[in-house]
């Protein structure tokens, strides 16, 4: 889960990383007050889970509290990459001598954290990697040893020549690694890490992603979740413990298993349709989940046909059938439903559905074609 810049900065500050002060405002009034407290010259930064905030006009330098108010007023409510800005971070303007990049992420191939640093900060690191790969130094971290002192030093030494800056950066690299492990991050980035005219090294922007699987031990971080930052349907799906991703098509998909769900979406596309969502009801046999899934799918007005594709293994087909019947009792579903069920307890499922007036298929290929056809005709 991505967290906001101001939240990431909280985690960094806790780890000891020097981060300039700053406060979050949800109104222009608040922004003005904060700017006044911080001495007048501030940056007003949109807090949304999207890159390119600056280009979109979501980051503004204000010379006075009044200007801060004005910018905050403009930025709050702005839409950046389909996300509405509901909060701004107000933070003092820093004079900048140089900008560097420091980041650490999980490297799947090496099964280990990977540090990347570059003296060319303030820009997208993937861009640096393409245009000037020699300006990036990488360091894989053996999880058995953690980041070793000489590795932190060598990364810092790549960024700066002045031993005083190297010393500060060495410490920051170590602190970033601590924050990364303590908060079970999949990504933790400082970009830019600046040097001030006074020779201080500071983190000016922060980007952090957290492994949701670790939330059970990170209640504070879990509370960082911003429900405004995702479609309501996804929040509801999470509550029902469903994997759901909203898409733009008109064929609503309800599948058991992530791989089969993706393959179902692909097959919808193959036959000329567009999937309205990814939805994996998981391996559980709980009819309530099926109900919740149907509620979420039917709440999407674009959906013109609902497609069930269930391969019963652990999931019992009769449970899914019961869920479908139950859902159609609880909610008034107008959208046509086509169903494919095969595997464990298939016969019982077909009987349950038949009694409730549904017919069911056993071939995935057939049922997808039918759903696409129905959606196209709607």
């Amino acid at each position, binding site marked *: 889960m991505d967290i906001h810049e101001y939240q990431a900065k909280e985690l960094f500050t806790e780890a000891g990383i020097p981060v300039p002060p700053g406060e979050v405002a949800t109104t222009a009034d608040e922004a003005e007050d904060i700017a006044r407290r911080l001495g007048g010259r501030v940056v007003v930064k949109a807090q949304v889970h999207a890159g390119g905030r600056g280009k979109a006009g979501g980051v503004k330098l204000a010379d006075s509290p009044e200007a801060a108010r004005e910018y905050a007023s403009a930025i709050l409510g702005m839409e950046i990459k389909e996300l509405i800005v509901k909060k701004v971070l107000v933070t003092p303007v820093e004079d900048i001598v140089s900008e560097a990049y420091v980041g650490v992420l*999980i490297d*799947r*191939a090496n*099964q*280990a*954290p990977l540090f990347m640093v570059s003296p060319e900060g303030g820009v997208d690191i*993937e861009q640096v990697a393409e245009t000037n790969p020699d300006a990036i130094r990488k360091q894989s971290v*053996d*999880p*058995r040893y953690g980041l070793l002192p000489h590795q932190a030093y060598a990364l810092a030494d790549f960024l700066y020549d002045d031993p005083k800056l190297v010393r500060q950066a060495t410490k920051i690299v170590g602190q970033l690694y601590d924050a990364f*492990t303590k908060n*079970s991050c*999949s990504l933790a980035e400082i970009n830019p890490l600046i040097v001030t005219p006074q020779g201080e090294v500071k983190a000016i922007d922060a980007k952090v992603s957290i*492994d949701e*699987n*670790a939330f*059970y*031990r990170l209640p504070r971080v879990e509370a960082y979740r911003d429900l405004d930052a995702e479609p309501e349907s996804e929040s509801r799906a999470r509550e029902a413990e469903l*994997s759901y*991703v909203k*898409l733009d098509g008109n064929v609503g998909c309800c*599948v*058991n*298993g*992530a*791989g*089969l*769900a*993706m*393959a179902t*979406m*692909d*097959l*919808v*596309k*193959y036959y000329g349709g567009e*999937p309205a969502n*990814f939805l*994996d009801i998981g*391996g559980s046999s709980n009819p309530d989940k099926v109900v919740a899934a149907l509620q979420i799918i039917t709440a999407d007005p674009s959906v013109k046909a609902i497609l069930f594709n269930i*391969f*019963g*293994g*652990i*999931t019992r087909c009769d449970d899914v059938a019961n869920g479908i019947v139950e859902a159609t009792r609880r909610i008034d579903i107008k959208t046509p439903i086509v169903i494919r069920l*095969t*595997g*464990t307890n298939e016969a019982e499922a077909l009987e349950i559905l038949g009694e409730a007036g549904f017919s069911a298929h056993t*071939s*995935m*290929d057939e049922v997808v074609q039918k759903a696409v056809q129905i959606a196209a005709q709607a």
Partner: protein
Amino acid sequence: MSVFIDQSTRVVVQGITGRDGSFHTHQMVAYGTQVVAGVTPGKGGQTFEAGNGARIPVFNTVEAAVRETGANASAIYVPPPFAASAIMEAADAGVALIVGITEGVPVQDMMTASALVQDKGVRLLGPNCPGLISPGKSKVGIIPGEITIPGPVGVVSRSGTLTYEAVNQLTQAGIGQTTCVGIGGDPIIGTDFIDCLEAFAADGETEAVVIIGEIGGTDEQDAARWVKDNLNVPVVGFIAGQTAPPGRTMGHAGAIISGSEGTADEKIRTFKESGIAVAERPVDIRDLVKEGLGL
């Protein structure tokens, strides 16, 4: 022949008294798997009744289970917060194969567990995988036995039900399998595609291989290159997630396109370049295997 497991595999189930562990122990025993022990801390000394009259002793530790029963493989059904630790316990206790079924294990926990597994020279499958089945011999995990039959095809996949779909179609067409292996959908897993391909290559009875991949990471690309350089039997490939948007996790923690890495197109391209017959639809897998086997 089969790879990784056969009739001689002696399984200890970690989390045997839990909901999933209990259910699948029954399933495994019913299929004929030798489940010789269970582990649930605090329930050592109890007996687990697995149907068929099978009475499986429960131990507090894997070490005790291995010592008392000679278990050489472990199936892990413990909840996610304890799963990495359970894997390390199994590795430490000296089983040869660990099958991690649990979904939702924190990635950083798995980094450590995976390092220990490698230090101990143990094979880990998963986590977040359906396990594996050598039809007619043994199954460890959750793959439904009834959709498989013995035969000449090796199947390796990152997904669960999509594999069932493919295997089921093979079986219905009368084409059996040597072993079906689900390697799991997490970003950090033990055994990968290449490990399985190597095993199939060394197995005299595997005459064709099916690889079912998905978006995320570069495992499929690495596997394709390995196939090109090393494998002499026909290989059929399928990649799920062509319609998945970048930056979103598609159910499996590992199924995410990050930047330009891990797209379905890239994987399909590498498959084709490496001489792998790529199925456009799941149903094509069966037909391409038939073709490959000359049926």
